[in-house]
């Protein structure tokens, strides 16, 4: 381990934050320069996350890039201990990619764009933090940090939509999202406190996941304790992962959010919840996990089917994708709940794959919305005429989402299925059915929006800008690459999933 490895994660978290700070002091009447600076910052983050991912030694496994900073001393001992394993490494990469993409395509945001990028980068930093820390306090710290900017990001730069029978204002969406996520996080907080108290009774007053993990391994957490604390983690983190019935913040949030925020929200933020369940729930409370998994996997299945069925009759592009995210996060939850190494590995891969896929979808929806100023799939039609590349990318993303082999979604979903088949056969069958339902709404969307003759009113539309095409193309390449050759991703994920306790 050289110096870079020791500092890498800290720098990774710090770069977006410092970038945000720097942008704060830019003159606000030069939006272009602000954008360039944000690109630079996000670019550095991306490069760092790439390097970190590439340097993660999957042969060795375990936590790497370790570094611990003392934060506060006794009696409340909290350290900022950094380190990533094979589960967080892909997610860090994911965040780097999506953040960079999000910043790039935010070129169109000119109104108060300084604030926008400050918040966006803060969000990115929070997400990096969650994936990079090994301490409950800081996990929670960064978790909240990632949620915090969402309110303003949606509230200020979002859009309100009138659906005829009901109205979804950006204020409503933002407030609901914020309160809902914080509501989830308070459960997590309570659970963290409970764990701390329990550990402290066992003589280890510590928030460090490492020492708590050791404690859990030695069976210091009684089954009763685990059984009542685990649901707190499960639901608390589950809210962020869109666990049914706590998912409604997500589609509404998407409908209100600006493009880049939707990308990060569905692409990365929802993954935090699932990651939390794995990292905290499974590691610390294996018995509780064992006891509650039937519930989680049932809810996950409901997620899959419910999300897909809901998406079928939505008319707003973002609602369709929003519900599709709910559905796909269901696979992640199912995969985790199998407590099977294949299933959990599939869940992690699904997080990555879904992150890229949804980000791509929202990017393209944003591109369409910017031009057509509408997202109603009954009104939009024949867009492939004018927006060839956009349509093509959207088709790829859609196909990835319906689990077409050769794209990353298939591998991930397939692994989740296999894992579930071994453990909960009936639910696995339902999950496969859910994948077929995905085809229904994706094809419906593609057919209505992109195919067919285009109306005159859409004749003026132009194809995605070079940036949109570039970012979209990169995402498409990632989807295909992982779909065709998942081994580079899988071998990293495997080393850590294999050693997860309780599987």
């Amino acid at each position, binding site marked *: 381990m050289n110096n870079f490895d020791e500092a890498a994660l800290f720098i990774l978290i710090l770069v977006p934050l410092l970038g945000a700070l720097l942008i704060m002091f830019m003159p606000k009447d030069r939006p272009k320069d602000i954008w360039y600076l944000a690109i630079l910052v996000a670019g550095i983050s991306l490069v760092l996350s790439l390097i970190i991912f590439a340097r993660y030694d999957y042969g060795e496994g375990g936590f790497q890039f370790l570094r611990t900073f003392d934060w506060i001393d006794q009696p409340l001992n909290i350290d900022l201990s950094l380190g990533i394993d094979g589960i967080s490494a892909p997610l860090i990469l994911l965040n780097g990619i999506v953040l960079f993409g999000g910043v790039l395509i935010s070129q169109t945001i000119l109104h108060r764009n300084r604030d926008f990028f400050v918040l966006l980068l803060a969000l990115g930093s929070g997400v990096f933090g969650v994936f990079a820390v090994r301490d409950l306090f800081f996990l929670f710290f960064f978790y909240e940090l990632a949620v915090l900017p969402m309110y303003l990001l949606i509230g200020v730069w979002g859009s309100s939509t009138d659906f005829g029978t009901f109205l979804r204002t950006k204020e409503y969406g933002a407030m609901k999202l914020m309160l809902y996520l914080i509501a989830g996080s308070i459960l997590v907080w309570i659970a963290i406190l409970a764990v701390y108290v329990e550990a402290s009774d066992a003589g280890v007053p510590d928030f460090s996941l490492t020492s708590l993990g050791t404690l859990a391994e030695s069976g210091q957490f009684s089954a009763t304790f685990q059984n009542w604390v685990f649901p707190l983690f499960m639901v608390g983190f589950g809210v962020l992962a869109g666990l049914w019935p706590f998912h409604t913040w997500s589609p509404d949030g998407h409908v209100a959010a600006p493009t880049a925020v939707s990308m990060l929200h569905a692409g990365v933020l929802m993954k935090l919840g699932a990651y939390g369940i794995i990292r905290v729930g499974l590691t610390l409370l294996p018995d509780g996990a064992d006891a509650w998994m039937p519930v989680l996997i049932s809810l996950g299945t409901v997620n899959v089917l419910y999300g897909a069925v809901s998406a079928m009759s939505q008319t707003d592009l973002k609602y369709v994708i929003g519900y599709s995210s709910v559905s796909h996060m269901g696979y992640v939850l199912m995969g985790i709940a199998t407590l099977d190494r*294949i299933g959990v590995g599939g869940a992690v891969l699904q997080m990555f794959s879904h992150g890229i896929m949804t980000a791509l979808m929202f990017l393209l929806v944003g591109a369409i919305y910017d031009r057509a100023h509408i997202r109603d799939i009954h009104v939009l039609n024949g867009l492939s005429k004018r927006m060839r590349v956009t349509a093509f990318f959207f088709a790829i993303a859609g196909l990835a989402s319906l689990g077409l*082999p050769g794209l990353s979604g298939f591998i991930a979903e*397939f692994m989740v299925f296999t894992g579930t088949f071994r453990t909960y056969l009936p639910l696995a069958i339902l999950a*496969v059915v859910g994948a077929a339902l995905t085809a229904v709404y994706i*094809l419906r969307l593609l*057919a209505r929006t992109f195919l067919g003759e285009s109306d005159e009113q859409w004749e003026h539309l132009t194809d995605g800008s070079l940036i949109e095409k570039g970012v979209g193309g990169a995402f498409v390449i990632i989807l295909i690459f992982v779909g065709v050759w998942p081994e580079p991703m899988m071998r990293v994920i495997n080393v850590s999933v294999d050693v997860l306790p309780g599987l």
Partner: protein
Amino acid sequence: MEWAWLIPVFCFAAAPLIVVFGERLPGKGAILSILAIGGGFVVFWVVLTAFLGASPASEINGTADCFTSEFTESLTCVYEHSWFHAADLELVWGIIIDPLTLVMLGLVTFVALMVQVYSLGYMKGDPNFGWYFAVHSLFAAAMLTLVLADNFLLLYVAWELVGICSYLLIGFWHERPSAREAAKKAFIVTRIGDVGLLIGILLLWREVGSFSMSEAFEAASTGAMSEGVTTAAAILLLLGAMGKSAQVPFHVWLPDAMEGPTPVSALIHAATMVVAGVYLVARAFPIFSAYDADPLVVVVIVGLVTALMASTIALVATDLKRILAYSTISHLGLMMLSLGAFGYTAAIFHLLAHGFAKALLFLGAGSVLHSTEEQDIQRMGGLRKVMPLTALVFSIGAISLGGIPILSGFWSKDEILAAVNDHRNVAFIVFALLTALMSALYMARAMFIAFYGQLREGMEQVHDAPWLMAVPMALLAVLAIGFGFLSFNWPGDYDGIGSFVSFGERHGFSFTWWLGILSAVMAVGSFLFAWQVYLKGRISLDNAKATFAPILKVVENKYYFDEVYQWVIDRVVLVFSRIIAWFDRAVVNDIGVNTPANSVRRLGYTLRLHVTGHVYSYTLAMVLGFVGLGIFWWFRST
């Protein structure tokens, strides 16, 4: 032989290249695509030669990749390369080379090559010319992978990819709403079958611990896998096969799929993709035939019902392409029937013969369409005069498929009948013969009405196929005529197709004379009958039509399958979906989320009234607080 993986790879490589650089490539990428599939065809021959020259003992390249399969009793070679693994899940790229694969490879590469060449002419001038060839390449690649796959997962991967290519090509002219809908329908209907397939594959994996086909077969035949699971897995695989091969009740997508360009119909919806289901059942035959071979009963019934139903519809349909589509369904049914009757060889043989003939028919139909832009046979007639070559090849195809002796269709159909006769009870052979009869009838009907008789008005300017389209048709016609001879015992080593592609004991060519003669008579009779009815008009069907009007109506409406499905989708699925969407908004969100939130806020608004603004009520609150505190304290300390 281990280079067989190159066959699909050419095409896989071609597809993205055409998408990205299409505009800059010669022929917008078409040339590249044709080169790729041509390369595949060449490699196929190399592999075939190597295979024929190899023997298990000779151990090609000193590796033990080749062995004699205990099921097919023929040489089988397997080459694997690791793909990825997760925990105990090991996934491999693996190809299997055995007679079944080889004949499929031959069919796919050849027909694809022909169709692509044909398309050069047919699709000329289309704005999305390059895209068309890109998808074609991708399709060819996926289809070749499908037949090469040695494990179920890779098969599934290819299975889905051919599905999506089919979707893209059916919807190629997506400006037409019908094409759009047809594409969607095709994908979703087959996808329903795929659910079964995937579940079946996963079930096998659960039992066997691997996706490898040979291990699954091993487990099924040795009894390592229980009878229940084996049967369930077989039925689930069959579901997938039924979806892809358009068996009842999943057949509804195939007629609609004719919305795609005609060469696509020829390649995908006649010769290659739709037979994937048949191929799957054949490939997984050890699972189907394990224990008491119960699943085969299902297969045979499905096949028979499909064959009968589709051929009746084909009899009354008037759209040339749809007639061919229903004919395809019917013949796919026959193949299934054959498989269900243990007619492994017969099924594959018919698959090939039908593939060539039906591709030919479609290309012929395409040629008609190309120049007349007319699909309804009732508005055609006498086309022989303006497009003689097309008429000729179409007639060859029709006669071949109709089962007129010495053309290939006759031999393959005969093998099927023989198998059914040998293994299933008499009802099956009766109905199978009936199907054969009808198949001859509708082919004759289509052929006579469209190409013979008086030339319709307004068709004088119609031209025959350009040479780019004619050459492929001619080549296919040769096969439609002569392919059947492969079934004979030729002098030398060759003992007929049965000695090459077989399951279990090899058997040479045998001919059940009474069946052969019966079917030949029926076929010839049908053509004569049709000639009388449609061309000469000597026999009128009006009386019969009147008598059977109710039944005819049912048949003309395709047994109302589409209506039922539409009803289910509109009234059940969509309504259910809307209910869920409403539930999500009104119950989960408004009641479940907003109500608690609003009641908290309302609670706040109510609670704030306690700060009245009057100083004495503040003091009163303090006093009450003290009293409460005192009472509480009292309880705590006593």
